[in-house]
Protein backbone atom coordinates (compact mmCIF):
# COMPACT_ATOMS: atom_id res chain seq x y z
CA UNK A 1 0.00 0.00 0.00
CA UNK A 2 2.72 2.44 1.03
CA UNK A 3 4.73 1.34 -1.98
CA UNK A 4 1.81 2.14 -4.27
CA UNK A 5 1.40 5.59 -2.79
CA UNK A 6 5.12 6.19 -3.23
CA UNK A 7 4.90 5.02 -6.85
CA UNK A 8 1.95 7.33 -7.43
CA UNK A 9 3.75 10.35 -5.98
CA UNK A 10 6.81 9.51 -8.02
CA UNK A 11 4.74 9.53 -11.19
CA UNK A 12 3.09 12.75 -10.16
CA UNK A 13 6.37 14.56 -9.70
CA UNK A 14 7.73 13.04 -12.88
CA UNK A 15 11.36 12.30 -13.56
CA UNK A 16 12.83 9.04 -14.76
CA UNK A 17 14.80 6.96 -12.29
CA UNK A 18 18.35 6.02 -13.20
CA UNK A 19 17.44 2.35 -12.91
CA UNK A 20 14.78 2.65 -15.60
CA UNK A 21 17.28 4.50 -17.78
CA UNK A 22 19.74 1.67 -17.17
CA UNK A 23 17.14 -0.91 -18.13
CA UNK A 24 16.24 0.85 -21.38
CA UNK A 25 19.87 1.30 -22.33
CA UNK A 26 20.57 -2.34 -21.62
CA UNK A 27 17.65 -3.50 -23.71
CA UNK A 28 18.87 -1.52 -26.67
CA UNK A 29 22.52 -2.39 -26.41
CA UNK A 30 21.76 -6.10 -26.07
CA UNK A 31 19.51 -6.03 -29.10
CA UNK A 32 22.27 -4.36 -31.03
CA UNK A 33 24.82 -6.89 -29.67
CA UNK A 34 22.58 -9.77 -30.73
CA UNK A 35 22.16 -8.35 -34.21
CA UNK A 36 25.90 -7.89 -34.56
CA UNK A 37 26.49 -11.45 -33.40
CA UNK A 38 24.01 -12.98 -35.82
CA UNK A 39 25.25 -12.23 -39.34
CA UNK A 40 23.58 -15.42 -40.58
CA UNK A 41 20.20 -14.19 -39.38
CA UNK A 42 20.71 -10.82 -41.06
CA UNK A 43 21.70 -12.57 -44.30
CA UNK A 44 18.60 -14.77 -44.15
CA UNK A 45 16.49 -11.67 -43.55
CA UNK A 46 18.09 -9.90 -46.53
CA UNK A 47 17.44 -12.91 -48.77
CA UNK A 48 13.82 -13.17 -47.70
CA UNK A 49 13.28 -9.45 -48.21
CA UNK A 50 14.73 -9.64 -51.70
CA UNK A 51 12.60 -12.67 -52.52
CA UNK A 52 9.41 -10.89 -51.55
CA UNK A 53 10.23 -7.61 -53.24
CA UNK A 54 11.42 -9.38 -56.38
CA UNK A 55 7.93 -10.70 -56.90
CA UNK A 56 6.75 -7.19 -57.64
CA UNK A 57 9.78 -5.37 -59.02
CA UNK A 58 13.16 -6.20 -60.46
CA UNK A 59 15.84 -5.39 -57.91
CA UNK A 60 19.57 -4.93 -57.99
CA UNK A 61 20.63 -7.66 -55.60
CA UNK A 62 24.32 -6.84 -55.75
CA UNK A 63 23.76 -3.36 -54.41
CA UNK A 64 21.11 -4.16 -51.85
CA UNK A 65 21.91 -3.73 -48.22
CA UNK A 66 20.19 -4.36 -44.90
CA UNK A 67 21.60 -2.56 -41.91
CA UNK A 68 20.59 -1.52 -38.42
CA UNK A 69 20.83 1.91 -36.95
CA UNK A 70 20.92 2.82 -33.31
CA UNK A 71 18.32 5.50 -32.73
CA UNK A 72 17.41 7.15 -29.52
CA UNK A 73 14.14 5.31 -29.06
CA UNK A 74 15.16 1.98 -30.54
CA UNK A 75 16.97 0.19 -33.27
CA UNK A 76 15.80 0.69 -36.82
CA UNK A 77 16.29 -1.64 -39.72
CA UNK A 78 17.27 0.09 -42.94
CA UNK A 79 16.82 -1.82 -46.17
CA UNK A 80 18.32 -0.20 -49.23
CA UNK A 81 17.23 -2.15 -52.28
CA UNK A 82 17.74 -0.46 -55.64
CA UNK A 83 14.86 -1.13 -58.01
CA UNK A 84 15.71 -1.68 -61.65
CA UNK A 85 12.29 -2.04 -63.20
CA UNK A 86 8.69 -3.03 -62.69
CA UNK A 87 7.88 -6.63 -63.32
CA UNK A 88 5.63 -7.16 -66.29
CA UNK A 89 2.06 -7.49 -65.03
CA UNK A 90 0.75 -10.99 -65.38
CA UNK A 91 -2.62 -11.47 -66.99
CA UNK A 92 -5.57 -11.33 -64.58
CA UNK A 93 -5.26 -14.60 -62.60
CA UNK A 94 -8.00 -17.13 -62.15
CA UNK A 95 -9.81 -16.82 -58.78
CA UNK A 96 -8.28 -20.13 -57.55
CA UNK A 97 -4.74 -19.11 -58.51
CA UNK A 98 -5.37 -15.78 -56.83
CA UNK A 99 -6.16 -17.49 -53.54
CA UNK A 100 -3.04 -19.63 -53.79
CA UNK A 101 -0.94 -16.55 -54.46
CA UNK A 102 -2.37 -14.76 -51.44
CA UNK A 103 -1.63 -17.79 -49.34
CA UNK A 104 2.00 -18.04 -50.36
CA UNK A 105 2.62 -14.35 -49.79
CA UNK A 106 1.15 -14.63 -46.33
CA UNK A 107 3.65 -17.38 -45.62
CA UNK A 108 6.54 -15.18 -46.65
CA UNK A 109 5.38 -12.46 -44.33
CA UNK A 110 5.26 -14.81 -41.41
CA UNK A 111 8.79 -15.96 -42.11
CA UNK A 112 9.94 -12.35 -42.03
CA UNK A 113 8.29 -11.77 -38.71
CA UNK A 114 9.83 -14.89 -37.27
CA UNK A 115 13.35 -13.63 -37.93
CA UNK A 116 14.24 -12.01 -34.68
CA UNK A 117 17.66 -12.32 -33.11
CA UNK A 118 17.66 -14.93 -30.32
CA UNK A 119 13.94 -14.51 -30.07
CA UNK A 120 14.60 -11.69 -27.64
CA UNK A 121 13.87 -8.63 -29.73
CA UNK A 122 10.52 -7.03 -29.39
CA UNK A 123 9.15 -4.27 -31.54
CA UNK A 124 12.28 -2.47 -32.57
CA UNK A 125 13.07 -1.96 -36.19
CA UNK A 126 9.63 -0.88 -37.26
CA UNK A 127 10.24 2.76 -37.83
CA UNK A 128 12.25 3.51 -40.91
CA UNK A 129 9.40 3.41 -43.41
CA UNK A 130 9.91 6.88 -44.66
CA UNK A 131 13.61 6.57 -45.23
CA UNK A 132 13.32 3.22 -46.89
CA UNK A 133 10.76 4.48 -49.33
CA UNK A 134 12.83 7.53 -50.19
CA UNK A 135 15.95 5.46 -50.77
CA UNK A 136 14.16 2.93 -52.89
CA UNK A 137 12.53 5.50 -55.13
CA UNK A 138 15.83 7.38 -55.43
CA UNK A 139 17.45 4.26 -56.70
CA UNK A 140 14.68 3.60 -59.13
CA UNK A 141 15.17 7.05 -60.67
CA UNK A 142 18.79 6.33 -61.53
CA UNK A 143 18.07 2.80 -62.64
CA UNK A 144 17.47 2.25 -66.33
CA UNK A 145 13.81 1.80 -67.12
CA UNK A 146 12.80 -1.30 -68.99
Amino acid at each position, binding site marked *: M*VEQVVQWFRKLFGGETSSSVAKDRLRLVLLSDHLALAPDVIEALRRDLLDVISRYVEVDEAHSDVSFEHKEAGIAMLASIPILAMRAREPQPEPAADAAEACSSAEETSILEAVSPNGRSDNYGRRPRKRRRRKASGASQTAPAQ
Partner: protein
Amino acid sequence: METQRLAAESVEAAPLPEAPQAPAAQADSQPKTRGRAIVVTSGKGGVGKTTTTANVGIALAARGARVVLIDADVGLRNLDLVLGLESRVRYHLLDVLEGRAELDDALIRDKRVPTLWLLAAAQNREKDDVETAAVQALIERLREAYDYVIVDSPAGIEMGFKNAIAGADEAIVVCTPEVAAVRDVDRVVGLLGNRVDVKLVVNRIRPALVRKGKMLSVDDVNSILRLPLLGVLGDAPDVIVATNRGEPVALDENAPIGAAYRAIAARIAGEDVPAPAAPDEPAGFLEKLGSLFGGRR
Protein backbone atom coordinates in the same frame (compact mmCIF):
# COMPACT_ATOMS: atom_id res chain seq x y z
CA MET B 1 24.89 -33.38 -24.53
CA GLU B 2 25.72 -36.63 -26.23
CA THR B 3 28.47 -35.12 -28.35
CA GLN B 4 29.99 -33.56 -25.29
CA ARG B 5 30.12 -36.89 -23.52
CA LEU B 6 31.70 -38.45 -26.56
CA ALA B 7 34.30 -35.71 -26.69
CA ALA B 8 35.09 -36.20 -23.04
CA GLU B 9 35.56 -39.91 -23.59
CA SER B 10 37.82 -39.44 -26.56
CA VAL B 11 40.21 -37.18 -24.66
CA GLU B 12 40.35 -39.73 -21.85
CA ALA B 13 43.00 -41.65 -23.76
CA ALA B 14 45.04 -38.64 -24.79
CA PRO B 15 46.90 -36.24 -22.46
CA LEU B 16 45.42 -37.47 -19.21
CA PRO B 17 47.84 -36.98 -16.31
CA GLU B 18 48.60 -40.17 -14.43
CA ALA B 19 47.02 -39.75 -11.04
CA PRO B 20 45.55 -42.26 -8.64
CA GLN B 21 41.91 -42.61 -7.73
CA ALA B 22 40.55 -39.81 -5.61
CA PRO B 23 40.12 -40.80 -1.94
CA ALA B 24 36.37 -40.89 -2.28
CA ALA B 25 36.43 -43.64 -4.89
CA GLN B 26 38.41 -45.92 -2.61
CA ALA B 27 36.15 -45.38 0.36
CA ASP B 28 32.99 -45.94 -1.63
CA SER B 29 32.73 -49.50 -2.82
CA GLN B 30 29.17 -49.27 -4.10
CA PRO B 31 28.65 -47.83 -7.58
CA LYS B 32 28.01 -44.12 -7.51
CA THR B 33 26.13 -41.92 -9.89
CA ARG B 34 28.24 -39.42 -11.75
CA GLY B 35 28.77 -36.15 -9.90
CA ARG B 36 27.68 -32.81 -11.29
CA ALA B 37 30.12 -30.41 -12.94
CA ILE B 38 29.17 -26.78 -12.44
CA VAL B 39 31.09 -23.72 -13.63
CA VAL B 40 30.69 -20.37 -11.90
CA THR B 41 31.20 -17.58 -14.40
CA SER B 42 30.14 -14.01 -15.28
CA GLY B 43 32.20 -12.38 -18.00
CA LYS B 44 32.82 -9.25 -15.98
CA GLY B 45 35.32 -9.36 -13.16
CA GLY B 46 34.67 -8.36 -9.59
CA VAL B 47 31.03 -9.44 -9.42
CA GLY B 48 31.60 -12.18 -6.84
CA LYS B 49 32.39 -15.37 -8.74
CA THR B 50 35.02 -16.56 -6.29
CA THR B 51 32.97 -15.65 -3.23
CA THR B 52 29.98 -17.45 -4.72
CA THR B 53 32.05 -20.52 -5.59
CA ALA B 54 33.53 -20.69 -2.08
CA ASN B 55 30.27 -20.20 -0.23
CA VAL B 56 28.01 -22.32 -2.41
CA GLY B 57 30.67 -25.03 -2.40
CA ILE B 58 31.12 -25.09 1.34
CA ALA B 59 27.35 -24.90 1.89
CA LEU B 60 26.85 -27.93 -0.35
CA ALA B 61 29.61 -29.78 1.49
CA ALA B 62 28.10 -28.84 4.85
CA ARG B 63 24.95 -30.62 3.67
CA GLY B 64 27.02 -33.77 3.42
CA ALA B 65 27.81 -33.74 -0.30
CA ARG B 66 31.34 -34.46 -1.47
CA VAL B 67 32.50 -31.31 -3.19
CA VAL B 68 35.67 -30.40 -5.10
CA LEU B 69 36.29 -26.75 -5.92
CA ILE B 70 38.67 -26.01 -8.79
CA ASP B 71 40.22 -22.57 -9.10
CA ALA B 72 40.55 -22.12 -12.85
CA ASP B 73 41.76 -18.55 -12.59
CA VAL B 74 45.31 -19.52 -13.51
CA GLY B 75 47.77 -16.74 -12.70
CA LEU B 76 45.41 -15.03 -10.27
CA ARG B 77 44.86 -17.64 -7.58
CA ASN B 78 42.29 -16.44 -5.04
CA LEU B 79 39.82 -19.14 -4.13
CA ASP B 80 42.28 -20.53 -1.55
CA LEU B 81 42.38 -17.14 0.13
CA VAL B 82 38.62 -16.72 0.28
CA LEU B 83 38.34 -20.20 1.79
CA GLY B 84 41.17 -19.56 4.25
CA LEU B 85 43.21 -22.45 2.80
CA GLU B 86 46.08 -20.40 1.35
CA SER B 87 48.70 -21.74 3.75
CA ARG B 88 48.03 -25.32 2.72
CA VAL B 89 48.54 -25.02 -1.03
CA ARG B 90 51.43 -27.29 -2.08
CA TYR B 91 50.48 -28.23 -5.61
CA HIS B 92 48.11 -26.69 -8.09
CA LEU B 93 45.96 -27.49 -11.11
CA LEU B 94 48.84 -27.34 -13.58
CA ASP B 95 51.02 -29.58 -11.41
CA VAL B 96 48.31 -32.19 -11.72
CA LEU B 97 47.63 -31.63 -15.42
CA GLU B 98 51.32 -31.78 -16.26
CA GLY B 99 52.04 -34.81 -14.09
CA ARG B 100 54.23 -33.17 -11.44
CA ALA B 101 51.83 -34.03 -8.64
CA GLU B 102 49.31 -36.70 -7.87
CA LEU B 103 45.73 -35.54 -7.76
CA ASP B 104 45.44 -36.81 -4.17
CA ASP B 105 48.35 -34.66 -3.04
CA ALA B 106 47.07 -31.56 -4.77
CA LEU B 107 43.56 -31.73 -3.33
CA ILE B 108 43.40 -29.75 -0.08
CA ARG B 109 40.85 -31.09 2.32
CA ASP B 110 39.00 -28.51 4.40
CA LYS B 111 39.22 -29.04 8.15
CA ARG B 112 35.96 -27.29 9.03
CA VAL B 113 33.89 -29.20 6.48
CA PRO B 114 35.72 -32.45 5.72
CA THR B 115 33.72 -33.22 2.59
CA LEU B 116 35.15 -30.15 0.84
CA TRP B 117 38.31 -30.25 -1.26
CA LEU B 118 40.12 -27.48 -3.13
CA LEU B 119 42.34 -27.73 -6.18
CA ALA B 120 44.17 -24.40 -6.31
CA ALA B 121 45.17 -22.48 -9.42
CA ALA B 122 48.77 -22.01 -10.48
CA GLN B 123 50.00 -18.59 -9.51
CA ASN B 124 53.15 -18.43 -11.64
CA ARG B 125 51.64 -19.52 -14.95
CA GLU B 126 49.30 -18.19 -17.61
CA LYS B 127 45.84 -19.18 -18.68
CA ASP B 128 47.07 -20.21 -22.13
CA ASP B 129 49.31 -22.84 -20.54
CA VAL B 130 46.26 -24.94 -19.70
CA GLU B 131 45.12 -27.58 -22.14
CA THR B 132 41.36 -27.63 -22.52
CA ALA B 133 41.13 -31.36 -23.16
CA ALA B 134 43.22 -32.12 -20.08
CA VAL B 135 40.96 -30.02 -17.83
CA GLN B 136 37.95 -31.72 -19.32
CA ALA B 137 39.43 -35.14 -18.64
CA LEU B 138 40.32 -34.17 -15.08
CA ILE B 139 36.79 -32.98 -14.38
CA GLU B 140 35.42 -36.20 -15.87
CA ARG B 141 37.57 -38.18 -13.46
CA LEU B 142 36.60 -36.10 -10.47
CA ARG B 143 32.94 -36.61 -11.29
CA GLU B 144 33.37 -40.33 -10.75
CA ALA B 145 34.32 -39.78 -7.12
CA TYR B 146 32.64 -36.57 -6.02
CA ASP B 147 29.06 -35.32 -5.97
CA TYR B 148 29.96 -31.83 -7.17
CA VAL B 149 32.89 -30.48 -9.14
CA ILE B 150 32.59 -26.70 -9.06
CA VAL B 151 34.89 -24.66 -11.28
CA ASP B 152 35.61 -21.02 -10.51
CA SER B 153 36.06 -19.41 -13.91
CA PRO B 154 38.27 -16.39 -14.52
CA ALA B 155 36.75 -13.18 -15.81
CA GLY B 156 36.73 -12.62 -19.55
CA ILE B 157 35.74 -14.86 -22.43
CA GLU B 158 39.19 -15.91 -23.60
CA MET B 159 41.15 -19.11 -23.13
CA GLY B 160 40.82 -19.24 -19.35
CA PHE B 161 37.05 -19.02 -19.61
CA LYS B 162 36.96 -21.64 -22.35
CA ASN B 163 39.03 -24.03 -20.25
CA ALA B 164 36.81 -23.44 -17.24
CA ILE B 165 33.56 -24.20 -19.04
CA ALA B 166 34.86 -27.12 -21.10
CA GLY B 167 34.05 -29.87 -18.61
CA ALA B 168 30.87 -28.41 -17.12
CA ASP B 169 27.32 -29.09 -18.13
CA GLU B 170 25.80 -26.70 -15.63
CA ALA B 171 26.65 -23.05 -15.08
CA ILE B 172 25.93 -20.50 -12.40
CA VAL B 173 26.26 -17.03 -13.87
CA VAL B 174 26.82 -14.31 -11.30
CA CYS B 175 25.49 -10.88 -12.14
CA THR B 176 25.44 -7.64 -10.17
CA PRO B 177 22.74 -5.05 -10.86
CA GLU B 178 25.00 -2.98 -13.13
CA VAL B 179 24.68 -2.40 -16.86
CA ALA B 180 28.17 -3.71 -17.63
CA ALA B 181 27.65 -6.89 -15.61
CA VAL B 182 24.29 -7.60 -17.26
CA ARG B 183 25.68 -7.09 -20.75
CA ASP B 184 28.63 -9.38 -20.03
CA VAL B 185 26.41 -12.09 -18.59
CA ASP B 186 24.27 -11.94 -21.72
CA ARG B 187 27.38 -12.46 -23.82
CA VAL B 188 28.63 -15.31 -21.65
CA VAL B 189 25.26 -17.06 -21.78
CA GLY B 190 25.46 -16.87 -25.58
CA LEU B 191 28.91 -18.48 -25.47
CA LEU B 192 27.79 -21.21 -23.08
CA GLY B 193 25.26 -22.26 -25.69
CA ASN B 194 22.49 -24.81 -25.35
CA ARG B 195 24.76 -27.57 -24.11
CA VAL B 196 25.00 -26.01 -20.66
CA ASP B 197 22.16 -25.64 -18.16
CA VAL B 198 22.50 -22.02 -17.00
CA LYS B 199 21.13 -20.49 -13.80
CA LEU B 200 21.41 -16.96 -12.49
CA VAL B 201 22.60 -15.58 -9.17
CA VAL B 202 22.05 -11.86 -8.68
CA ASN B 203 24.66 -10.56 -6.29
CA ARG B 204 25.08 -7.33 -4.30
CA ILE B 205 21.50 -6.17 -4.43
CA ARG B 206 20.80 -3.16 -2.21
CA PRO B 207 17.04 -3.10 -1.62
CA ALA B 208 17.01 0.48 -0.34
CA LEU B 209 18.59 1.69 -3.59
CA VAL B 210 16.26 -0.49 -5.66
CA ARG B 211 13.24 1.05 -3.96
CA LYS B 212 14.49 4.55 -4.74
CA GLY B 213 14.96 3.60 -8.37
CA LYS B 214 18.69 4.04 -8.09
CA MET B 215 19.57 0.41 -8.72
CA LEU B 216 18.31 -2.21 -11.17
CA SER B 217 16.06 -4.67 -9.38
CA VAL B 218 16.31 -8.43 -9.68
CA ASP B 219 13.26 -8.31 -11.95
CA ASP B 220 14.87 -5.62 -14.11
CA VAL B 221 18.00 -7.71 -14.49
CA ASN B 222 16.10 -10.86 -15.24
CA SER B 223 13.59 -9.23 -17.57
CA ILE B 224 16.63 -8.74 -19.77
CA LEU B 225 18.54 -11.96 -19.14
CA ARG B 226 15.52 -14.27 -18.77
CA LEU B 227 17.32 -17.03 -16.88
CA PRO B 228 16.12 -19.40 -14.18
CA LEU B 229 16.85 -17.58 -10.92
CA LEU B 230 18.92 -19.62 -8.50
CA GLY B 231 19.51 -17.02 -5.84
CA VAL B 232 19.55 -13.39 -4.79
CA LEU B 233 22.30 -12.09 -2.53
CA GLY B 234 22.40 -8.77 -0.77
CA ASP B 235 25.41 -6.51 -0.58
CA ALA B 236 26.32 -7.61 2.91
CA PRO B 237 29.21 -6.36 5.05
CA ASP B 238 29.29 -9.83 6.64
CA VAL B 239 30.77 -11.15 3.40
CA ILE B 240 33.64 -8.67 3.56
CA VAL B 241 34.37 -9.47 7.19
CA ALA B 242 34.20 -13.22 6.55
CA THR B 243 36.51 -12.95 3.54
CA ASN B 244 38.98 -10.87 5.59
CA ARG B 245 39.19 -13.78 7.99
CA GLY B 246 39.06 -16.59 5.45
CA GLU B 247 35.95 -18.01 7.06
CA PRO B 248 33.23 -18.52 4.44
CA VAL B 249 30.10 -16.67 5.51
CA ALA B 250 27.93 -19.62 4.45
CA LEU B 251 29.01 -21.32 7.68
CA ASP B 252 27.87 -18.35 9.78
CA GLU B 253 24.53 -19.30 11.30
CA ASN B 254 23.87 -15.73 12.41
CA ALA B 255 24.44 -13.91 9.14
CA PRO B 256 21.38 -13.56 6.86
CA ILE B 257 23.69 -13.70 3.84
CA GLY B 258 24.94 -17.07 5.08
CA ALA B 259 21.38 -18.34 4.99
CA ALA B 260 21.03 -17.00 1.45
CA TYR B 261 24.07 -19.02 0.35
CA ARG B 262 22.74 -22.12 2.09
CA ALA B 263 19.41 -21.62 0.29
CA ILE B 264 21.26 -21.58 -3.03
CA ALA B 265 23.01 -24.81 -2.08
CA ALA B 266 19.67 -26.37 -1.16
CA ARG B 267 18.19 -25.36 -4.53
CA ILE B 268 21.16 -26.83 -6.36
CA ALA B 269 20.67 -30.04 -4.42
CA GLY B 270 17.11 -30.10 -5.72
CA GLU B 271 15.32 -29.03 -2.57
CA ASP B 272 12.18 -27.05 -3.08
CA VAL B 273 13.25 -23.86 -1.33
CA PRO B 274 10.84 -20.93 -1.78
CA ALA B 275 11.56 -18.64 -4.72
CA PRO B 276 14.53 -16.41 -4.03
CA ALA B 277 13.45 -13.02 -2.74
CA ALA B 278 15.36 -9.80 -2.48
CA PRO B 279 17.02 -9.53 0.91
CA ASP B 280 14.88 -7.77 3.43
CA GLU B 281 15.85 -4.27 4.33
CA PRO B 282 12.74 -2.37 5.35
CA ALA B 283 12.56 1.25 4.28
CA GLY B 284 12.50 3.74 7.13
CA PHE B 285 9.88 6.42 7.32
CA LEU B 286 12.35 9.16 6.44
CA GLU B 287 13.52 7.24 3.40
CA LYS B 288 9.96 6.90 2.15
CA LEU B 289 9.24 10.55 2.80
CA GLY B 290 12.52 11.60 1.16
CA SER B 291 11.80 9.61 -1.97
CA LEU B 292 8.59 11.51 -2.51
CA PHE B 293 10.45 14.72 -2.96
CA GLY B 294 12.89 13.64 -5.58
CA GLY B 295 16.62 13.91 -5.35
CA ARG B 296 18.88 12.28 -7.92
CA ARG B 297 17.65 8.82 -8.79
